[in-house]
C-alpha cells in the first residue's frame, strides 16, 4: 500500500512537471482493497487489474520498474512504448493487460479460467476489478452471467468510489446496493468497507478462498471514496466537501498506519524508516528509467500480427 502510494504520488509530480506523456491515474483511497486482493492471490492465479490497482499489481508481484517504464514510455518496459500508464501486464504470467473499455476484462478472465479448466488445473482463481461506473456496461453483465453459468472461480471486486469520473452513484444505477445484484446473477455477494484494511483482508481473502474452494463466482462490493481526480488532469471539484469529511473520506493508508502503530506492530521510527527506504526505491527506479531509451520509430516493426507473413504488405 505504502509503496503504491509513494510511487503514484511521484508519478503525479512527474506528470505535473510535464515529464509523462498521457495521463496518470491514482489509486489513492483504494490501496487497502486492491492490496488485499493482490495478497490473497497466489502465483498461478489470474489477475486482471483495472485503473486504480497499483497496490494490487505490486502485491501480485509487479516490479515497480514495469510501472515506471510504462508510464515513462521506456523501450525496455513490458509495453515498449506501444501502450502507456495503466495499460500494462504480462499475460503469460497470469497478469493480464487491461484495455480501456470498462467491463471488457471480466469475460477475458472467465476465458482464462475456462482454459485452466480444460487443462485440468484445480484450485486456480481469476480476479479482476471494476468501478461503480463499469457495472453499467453490457460487458459487465454478459461476463458475470457467463461466469455464473460456467460456475467459474472468479472474484470480481467492485470498488464503489462514489463517482464514475464525475457522475455520482444516483445517475449511474438505481438499485439500493450493488451487492443486491449478486443474487440476480446467482453468485455470492460480499460487502466491505474499503477504508479498513483489516476488513478488506478478511472479506477479500474469504471471497478468494470461497472461489478457490469451488463455490463459484464471488462479487465483492467495496465502499470507498476516490481521494483524487479521475486522473491527475481532473481536480475532482465535483466531490462534495461533506463527503470528504465523512467516514468514506478517511484515507485507508493513514488508517492502516494508525492501526499498526496502535497495536505496536511497528514503531513510529520503523514506519519512518520504511517510508524513507520506499521513497528511495521509487527515486532509484525513476532515475533508472530516465536513462533508458525511448521507443524508436525506425526499429519499430509496424506489424500487428504474430504471423508477419500474413501482414497486408500493401498497407505497410
Amino acid at each position: 500500500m505504502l509503496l503504491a502510494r509513494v510511487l503514484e504520488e511521484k508519478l503525479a509530480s512527474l506528470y505535473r512537471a510535464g515529464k509523462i506523456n498521457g495521463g496518470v491515474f491514482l489509486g489513492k483511497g483504494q490501496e487497502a482493497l486492491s492490496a488485499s486482493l493482490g495478497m490473497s492471490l497466489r502465483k498461478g492465479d489470474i489477475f486482471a487489474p483495472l485503473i486504480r490497482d497499483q497496490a494490487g499489481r505490486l502485491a501480485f508481484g509487479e516490479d515497480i520498474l514495469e510501472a515506471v517504464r510504462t508510464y515513462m514510455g521506456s523501450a525496455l518496459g513490458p509495453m515498449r512504448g506501444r501502450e502507456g500508464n495503466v495499460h500494462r501486464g504480462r499475460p503469460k504470467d497470469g497478469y493480464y493487460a487491461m484495455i480501456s473499455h470498462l467491463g471488457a476484462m471480466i469475460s477475458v478472465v472467465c476465458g482464462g479460467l475456462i482454459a485452466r479448466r480444460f487443462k485440468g488445473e484445480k484450485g486456480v482463481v481469476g480476479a479482476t476489478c471494476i468501478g461503480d461506473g463499469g457495472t453499467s456496461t453490457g460487458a459487465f453483465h454478459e461476463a458475470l452471467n457467463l461466469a455464473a453459468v460456467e460456475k467459474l472461480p472468479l472474484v470480481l471486486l467492485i470498488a464503489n468510489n462514489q463517482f464514475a469520473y464525475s457522475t455520482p452513484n444516483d445517475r449511474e444505477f438505481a438499485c439500493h446496493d450493488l451487492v443486491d445484484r449478486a443474487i440476480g446473477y446467482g453468485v455470492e455477494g460480499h460487502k466491505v468497507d474499503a477504508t479498513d484494511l483489516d476488513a478488506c483482508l478478511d472479506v477479500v481473502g474469504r471471497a478468494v478462498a470461497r472461489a478457490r474452494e469451488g463455490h463459484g463466482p464471488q462479487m465483492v462490493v467495496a465502499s470507498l471514496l476516490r481521494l483524487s481526480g479521475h486522473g491527475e488532469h481532473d481536480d475532482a471539484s465535483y466531490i462534495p466537501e461533506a463527503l470528504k469529511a465523512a467516514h468514506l473520506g478517511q484515507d485507508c493508508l493513514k488508517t492502516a498506519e494508525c492501526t499498526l502503530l496502535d497495536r505496536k506492530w511497528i514503531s513510529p521510527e520503523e514506519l519512518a524508516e520504511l517510508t524513507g527506504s520506499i521513497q528511495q526505491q521509487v527515486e532509484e527506479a525513476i532515475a533508472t528509467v530516465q536513462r533508458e531509451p525511448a521507443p524508436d520509430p525506425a526499429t519499430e516493426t509496424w506489424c500487428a500480427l504474430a504471423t508477419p507473413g500474413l501482414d497486408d504488405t500493401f498497407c505497410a
Partner: protein
Amino acid sequence: MITYLEAIREAQAKALTDDPRVYIYGQDVGRFGGAFKATKNLAHEFPGRVLDAPISEDAMVGSAIGAAIEGMRPIVEIQYADFSTPGFNQIVNHAASLYWRTRVPCPITVRLPSGGTAGSGPFHSQSMEGVYAQYPGLVILTPATVEDAYSMLLEAVAIDDPVLFCEHKYLYYHLKAEGLPTEALPVGKARIARPGRDVTVVTYSAMVHEALAAAEELSGEGYEVEVVDLRSIKPIDTDTVLASVARTGRLLAVGEAWPWGGVTAEVVARVASEGLALLDAPPRRLNAKNTPIPFHPNLWGTHRPTAPTVARALRDLLRL
C-alpha cells in the same frame, strides 16, 4: 458429394481431433448442433469441447481471448455475422490489439455466417468483412468454394492471430464438391477462378459465383472475362490482382457489402495507385445498394449484385 456447410463441419471435426487446444463456443452449438447445423454431432463426438454460450457476443469473444492467452485455440460461432456487432469491441479492440500490445498471440477463430439469402432481411444478411478489415491485427477469410471452406477453416485455427472466418450462408447448401480437398493454396493467395483476357473481375465469397455466371454469359458474346477470387480480404493478394489487370487492362471489383468504402474500394485504390498504366479504362466497382438489406426476395435480388447486373457492368466497362 459434400456441401460447403458440411465442409465447415468436417473442418471443425478435424481441428478438434488433431489439436486438444481447440474447443467450440457459441449459441446452440452443443447438442442442437448450431442454427445451421455447422456443429452437428460434434458435442457428442467431442464431449465437453463444444459448449453452448449465453446470448452474449461480447463475453463469448472476450472469453475466447482469455482462453487464447492461456494457450487454447477457441473457435467462436457467432450465429449470424450481423450479431457480431455486440462483440465488436472485443474483436477489434482486444483480440486485434493483444499481440501488438503484449507479445502474446491471440489465436482465436470467429466464424461469421455472412451474406444474404432470400427472405433474411436487414439483420440476418450482412457482410461485415469490410468493417473489420479497417482494423489492424485481424486476418479475414472469405471462402468461395467447398474446398476453401474446409482448408481455410483448418488454416484459420492454426494461425496465431485472430481470424474472422466469413462463411457465406447462401453457399451453405447451394455449393457442392466431390469430396474434401487434399491440398490448397495458402491463406493470403488469390485464385484465378476463370482465366480471361478482356476484363478482370476481382471478387470474393458468394459473388465469385455471380461473376462466373456473368463471365459465362459474356463468353457467348465473344468476351473472355477473368475472375479473381480473393479468398482472403485481409491480407489482399494485390500482386495477383495487378497481374490479372496487366493481362486484361480492365477492372471491375464486385462485392456484396455496401458501397461506401470497403473491399471493392480498396481493390480499386490499389490498382489505381500501383497499376494505373495497366488500365485501358477507368476501374469500376459494383456493390450492394446503399440501404439496409431488404426482406422480400424481389427487393433483395435487386439490392445485391447478381450475374445479370455483373454482366451489365462488364458490358459497360468493355465499351469504354
